[in-house]
């Protein structure tokens, strides 16, 4: 994983992030169960509001994906981390699995406080002139609007399988997208790639959610969570 590590984060990034009036949730990745546990022991001592375990990064060769693929793997790593972490614990899932609902169940069974989904879908692009993949790693994580329908479907499926809160993401760029995730069952949403095209995407998304609430006379946004009616 290309990042400077937890000590650097604690010394340099955290004070800066703390200067804003918002919750800080740290996304944590390791390459073995021991590493996840060690990392979360440190995170437990920091001034942060929660941890999101990343069990699903496709851009690292022998990465976290191995843990995210099976019920047993997800349950095991989540249980071990739960033992050392008192802060709110979210576990983030990869969509590159056959049955997302059963994986989410593992998160709930292991005692996490919530489940995040989806991470990036594994993708590949080929340069047809060079007849080679465009990405140096050959394959890579696909994000943004292209993956939104998959994400919404998975959030819905997971919402049917677990009772813990869902943090939904995947292609959200405006309020309408956010509402879709909430109707599907997400209590909260997050935005990744959308920030790359417009630094104000999050602000615009909040405004868009408020517009929707006005339009349908909704006083509390929680009232719409999971209220999609199936055909």
């Amino acid at each position, binding site marked *: 994983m290309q990042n400077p590590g937890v000590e650097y984060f604690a010394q340099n990034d955290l004070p800066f992030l703390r200067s804003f009036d918002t919750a800080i949730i740290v996304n944590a990745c390791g390459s073995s169960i021991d590493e996840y546990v060690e990392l979360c022991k440190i995170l437990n001592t920091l001034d942060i509001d929660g941890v999101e375990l990343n069990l699903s990064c496709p851009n690292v060769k022998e990465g976290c994906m191995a843990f995210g693929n099976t019920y047993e793997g997800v349950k095991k790593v989540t249980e071990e981390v739960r033992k050392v972490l008192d802060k709110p614990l979210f576990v983030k899932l990869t969509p590159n699995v056959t049955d997302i609902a059963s994986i989410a169940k593992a998160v709930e069974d292991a005692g996490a406080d919530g489940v995040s989904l989806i991470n990036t879908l594994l993708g590949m692009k080929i340069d047809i002139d060079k007849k080679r993949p465009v990405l140096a790693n050959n394959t890579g994580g696909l994000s943004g609007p292209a993956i939104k329908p998959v994400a919404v479907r998975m959030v819905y499926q997971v919402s049917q399988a677990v009772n813990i809160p869902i943090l939904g993401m995947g292609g959200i760029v405006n309020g309408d997208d956010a509402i879709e995730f909430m109707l599907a069952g997400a209590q909260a949403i997050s935005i990744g790639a959308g*920030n*790359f095209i417009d630094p104000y995407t999050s602000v615009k998304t909040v405004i868009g959610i408020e517009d929707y609430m006005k339009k349908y006379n909704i006083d509390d946004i929680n009232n719409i969570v999971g209220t999609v009616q199936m055909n």
Partner: protein
Amino acid sequence: MPELLLAELVNKQQLKKDLFKFSIKAPNIVKNSKPGNFVEIRVSEQTEPFLRRPISIYNLDRENGILEFIFQVKGKGTEILSKKEVGSSIDVVGPLGYGTFKYEEYQNIAIIGGGIGIFPLYELAKCAKNNNKNVNTYIGFRNQELVVLEEEFKQVSNNLVLTTDDGSYGKKGFAINFLEEDINKEKIDSIFACGPLPMLKAVQKLAAEKNIPCQISLEEKMACGLGVCLGCAVKTASSPKDSPEYLHVCKAGPVFNSKDVEI
């Protein structure tokens, strides 16, 4: 601080079949820009194409707050951009990149560029010339058809060498061959380069052999341009083989000391 702006397209010029020069009104970006900076342009209000496209700054008209860039139509993004009309607005973020060309401490500078890599070198040459540097410019193209901006570069250089690979225009050969010949004669004390990778590698090597400070502007595929996605990584020259360390072209670059990066 980079700024997000809907900038008016005040002038548009087609330099070649697939080459366009845009002039946009962006006073704050212009004020904060240095030679070597780039901007990221969102070509569509829709989400397709999704990501912004990185384009170098070609010229800064500080008096009028006009920023100029030149781009080649490559794929969907630049195609859409090329259809914008004068008076419409261009969605731009900039200036980007902390690594810019630093020429101030040198006197006899060599500027070398190839193909579409010459665009970011114009502002550098202009600034250096205005600051009484001896500017030796070497620009290379594959053939006569691709030659652009000869007059423009002549204006901002004390000495301009234009080459084509096939000799159909200017001098025959690679620009770097002529630079190499001039190093002693012109007492070249610094090299600034932008262009295709093979050229940059050759320049990097030449600078190392002659022990001349050298700055190169790199290109990488960029998703965010803001140092967030880590997609534009380049290996540092000092990092050990088994645990590579990276710098990010959009943030630490796009201009690097040629000794610092492995290209």
